[in-house]
């Protein structure tokens, strides 16, 4: 079952923060986050494996609430290079990642 991402789109000024949410109706083994720029392949950002885990990647971090079956991606002090579409991917059973519908992020100067 496809996870639900919100919001669908975000427009930011450089330096502003954003949060992207991902929720699932099924129990999660892991949550992945990817960024895709126009015309390119999705690029892996991070994976969260445990309940309550939080990870960081420069100014991009994420949390995973296993009980609530939710994950959030935090983008702080956004840069122009952060623009793109962000996808969460959820793993339930087996080994296939199911992606959310994506969140389009545009960072303006």
């Amino acid at each position, binding site marked *: 079952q496809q996870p639900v991402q919100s919001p669908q789109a975000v427009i930011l000024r450089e330096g502003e923060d954003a949060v992207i949410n991902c929720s699932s109706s099924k129990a999660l083994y892991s949550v992945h986050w990817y960024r*895709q720029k126009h015309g390119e*392949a999705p690029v*892996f*950002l991070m*994976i969260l494996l445990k309940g309550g885990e939080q990870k960081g990647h420069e100014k991009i971090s994420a949390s995973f609430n296993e009980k609530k079956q939710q994950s959030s991606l935090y983008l702080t002090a956004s840069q122009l290079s952060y623009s793109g579409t962000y996808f969460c991917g959820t793993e339930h059973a087996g*080994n*296939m*990642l*199911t*992606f959310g519908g994506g969140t389009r992020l545009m960072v303006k100067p």
Partner: protein
Amino acid sequence: DTAVSQTPKYLVTQMGNDKSIKCEQNLGHDTMYWYKQDSKKFLKIMFSYNNKELIINETVPNRFSPKSPDKAHLNLHINSLELGDSAVYFCASNSGRYGYTFGSGTRLTVV
């Protein structure tokens, strides 16, 4: 370069034709995948394959078939192409509980 490579990058073909897309990874990963990305950017899993098991997304028409000659290759064969098959197809690979590495994609246009 270590990577996941797909060929061709672009494929334009007529309805009813049969076509294949090739994928190779030199990362030593155990599992390979095919994803379809439609015009609304939705990424849909089609297949997951390692040397032990093929997992097929039940919603994928049986006109689509993965073929894996060895652990480093997973090709996608499509029979009787339809207009609705037009999309970008991504190959990906990973091992264990690690992130996926995607190929650069194949843009398929059926006319």
